[in-house]
């Protein structure tokens, strides 16, 4: 009797466990991303939709902190032989990721090996150009690309007697508008986020002047910085001088200055097009976007602006089954519906032409005229060697040097010429270090 009882228990055990282990567990794909707040919630909902649509693959998306933290976490994970499958890396980390040939698997290889249909031509070339080899092979998948635009406070404009349908086009106009706004009671004219990205890198592309030699680094590791050209010096010196009249005030590093715009301290603000989602939530006034101002008659302005944001890199060291999962997910991410939704919610650019036309067809751009600004600005002209993007090693350090330099210039410790000359010397040291380490 006792023996029968035991055999019954064992039989039930086996019958329950055995089918469960035979039933396929979905293949897990780990994605480490860097979006917090509303953007992070959106990322998780995209992932949840993908997972609920099929049960072969399960994408697990983890927020790892800001862009720096996420990239560092990915590198540390690689060094401890346990990297995620997909890593979101910001655009300035591109050179580092590209040089790490044993650590990454290029996207074109992943897509080809999975055997799934995939066409690189479906993507907007201005967006993918940054992340592609000179012969057109895509190394990482663009996910969130933005470009800087000018945000302006419509209510403040009306109060100062300015026409909100005629935003300033040139920097001289910006100064005029700013003076009128300050007279009407605004504490200051304009401020900016990401000052190096907008007022040095994009400034150069927008005016069709180089940031560095060798096509901004695309052509070789022996590139050198040229951001101390007369035009750059003129612009930075002008910003420093404008501070005295409160036409311009420095907002701090990264996008710390966003509060200045949403609190009404400045009526105009240059920031990434992706700042849209945040401003929509925090601004209690009507605001619109327009194209980045330029100096008329200088260089080849307006040319086109370059992207910022991040792309998705695939890390090496995983199984083919898992890479198939990555490929399936990438196809899902690139589908018109998903891209159109992401674009409309965040203000990031749609990465495929289909997504752009879908959004246009839905009449979104008529209801929200500012949304198209970023895209129009980026595709205004065919990119030249100066406006395709940039590819400099150790560029994260260079950004830090630029913050220091600009802060020294704005506080009066150095003139724009001195500061930019010093920055070029320090930056070239970094480039030579990168060149040496990656011979």
């Amino acid at each position, binding site marked *: 009797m006792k023996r029968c009882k035991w055999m019954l228990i064992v039989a039930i055990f086996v019958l329950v466990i055995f089918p469960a282990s035979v039933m396929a567990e979905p293949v897990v794909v780990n994605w480490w991303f860097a979006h917090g707040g509303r953007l992070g919630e959106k990322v998780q909902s995209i992932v949840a939709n993908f997972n609920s649509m099929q049960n072969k693959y399960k994408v697990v998306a983890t927020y790892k902190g800001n862009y*720096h933290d996420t990239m*560092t976490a990915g*590198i540390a994970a*690689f*060094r401890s032989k346990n990297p995620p499958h997909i890593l979101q890396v910001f655009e300035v980390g591109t050179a*580092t990721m590209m*040089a*790490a*040939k*044993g*650590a990454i698997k290029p996207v074109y290889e992943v897509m080809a090996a999975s055997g799934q249909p995939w066409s690189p031509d479906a993507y907007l070339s201005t967006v993918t150009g940054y992340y592609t080899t000179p012969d057109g092979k895509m190394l990482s998948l663009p996910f969130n690309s933005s470009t800087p635009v000018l945000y302006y406070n419509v209510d403040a404009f009306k109060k100062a007697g300015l026409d909100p349908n005629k935003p300033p086009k040139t920097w001289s106009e910006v100064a005029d508008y700013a003076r009128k706004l300050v007279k009407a009671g605004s504490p200051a004219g304009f401020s900016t986020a990401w000052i190096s990205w907008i007022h040095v890198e994009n400034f150069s592309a927008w005016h069709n002047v180089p940031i560095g030699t060798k096509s901004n680094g695309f052509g070789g590791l022996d590139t050198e910085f040229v951001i101390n050209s007369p035009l750059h010096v003129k612009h930075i010196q002008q910003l420093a001088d404008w501070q005295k009249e409160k036409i311009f005030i*420095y*907002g*701090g*590093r990264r996008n*710390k200055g966003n*509060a*200045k715009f949403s*609190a009404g*301290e400045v009526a105009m603000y240059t920031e990434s097009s992706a700042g849209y989602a945040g401003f929509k939530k925090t601004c209690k006034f009507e605001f619109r976007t327009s194209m980045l101002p330029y100096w008329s008659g200088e260089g080849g302005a307006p040319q086109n602006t370059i992207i910022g944001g991040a792309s998705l890199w695939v890390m090496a060291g995983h199984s083919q089954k898992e890479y198939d999962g990555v490929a399936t997910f990438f196809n899902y991410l690139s589908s018109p519906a998903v891209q159109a939704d992401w674009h409309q919610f965040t203000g990031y650019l749609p990465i495929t032409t289909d997504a752009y036309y879908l959004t246009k067809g839905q009449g979104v751009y008529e209801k929200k005229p500012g949304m198209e600004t970023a895209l129009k600005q980026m595709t205004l002209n065919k990119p030249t060697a100066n406006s395709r993007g940039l590819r400099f090693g*150790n560029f*994260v*350090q260079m950004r*830090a040097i630029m*913050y*220091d*330099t600009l*802060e*020294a210039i*704005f*506080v009066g*410790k150095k003139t724009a010429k001195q500061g930019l000359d010093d920055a070029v010397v320090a930056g070239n040291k970094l480039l030579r*270090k990168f060149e*040496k*380490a*990656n011979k």
Partner: protein
Amino acid sequence: MEKRVVFKNKILPYFLVAPQIIITLVFFIWPASMAIYQSALQEDPFGLSSTFVAFENFIYIFTDPIYINSIKVTMTFSFSVAAIAMSFALLFAVMADRAIRGATTYKTFIIWPYAIAPVVAAVLWYFLFNPTVGMLSFFLKSIGINWNFELNGRQAMILVIIAAAWREISYNFLFFLAGLQAIPKSFIEAAAIDGASPRKRFWTISFPLLSPTVFFLFVMNIVYAFFDTFGVIHSITEGGPNEATNIMVYKVYHDGFESLDLGGSAAQSVILMIVVILLTVIQFRFIERKVHY
């Protein structure tokens, strides 16, 4: 009767100290030796290619004006934090020592800041002094001070010193209070009878007897300002503006994790390790002899 503890079992003592030795090996010796090893290498962030460069990283940082500036900033920062934290704490301790009514409430409130993590304290001070939305910034602007620590290096330094010292005041207060209460009341009374004023009594009797505590707290405050204030700098200024608050421990993080220059960062942490060893040696040789428990 032997004073030393003697174990009959020859192996038992080794087992008893083993956990501590293992912890020291894993959490100190191993990372420290890795840091020394990495400081002699020049490698890419992924570790795929590394070249042995011996002392080149050290030469590079000592000829780097930013690193020299960082040493100066760290000195200014730590001595200021130590001075402010200790002087306020001493003042509060003297006052609390004399209070009779509500003494416990007073002491409880002074100790509270120590319970707050340095990063949280830093964020609180950041909000108070934020140029756009901070309450204290409104006050400063209303009395005519152009407060913008995002641009003005000196103001940034003042802000981080306040944020870092605020917490240390509580820690020092505890020690000073204990030190004051350990002074025999008979000395003070004798001096009072001889006609010494409270000020004279403090500076000629209490303060000299407090000197071991002062010395101990000085070293502890310097160590705190050197190392535990990473969170303060990271949340408020990130080493800016223009390197004004780039203390050495922050630079190690920035160079290692943000700029991914692992060799240079390791070299800097080796330098910091030498500083800690020196401070510990000083503390053990000069202080431990004078303090009696």
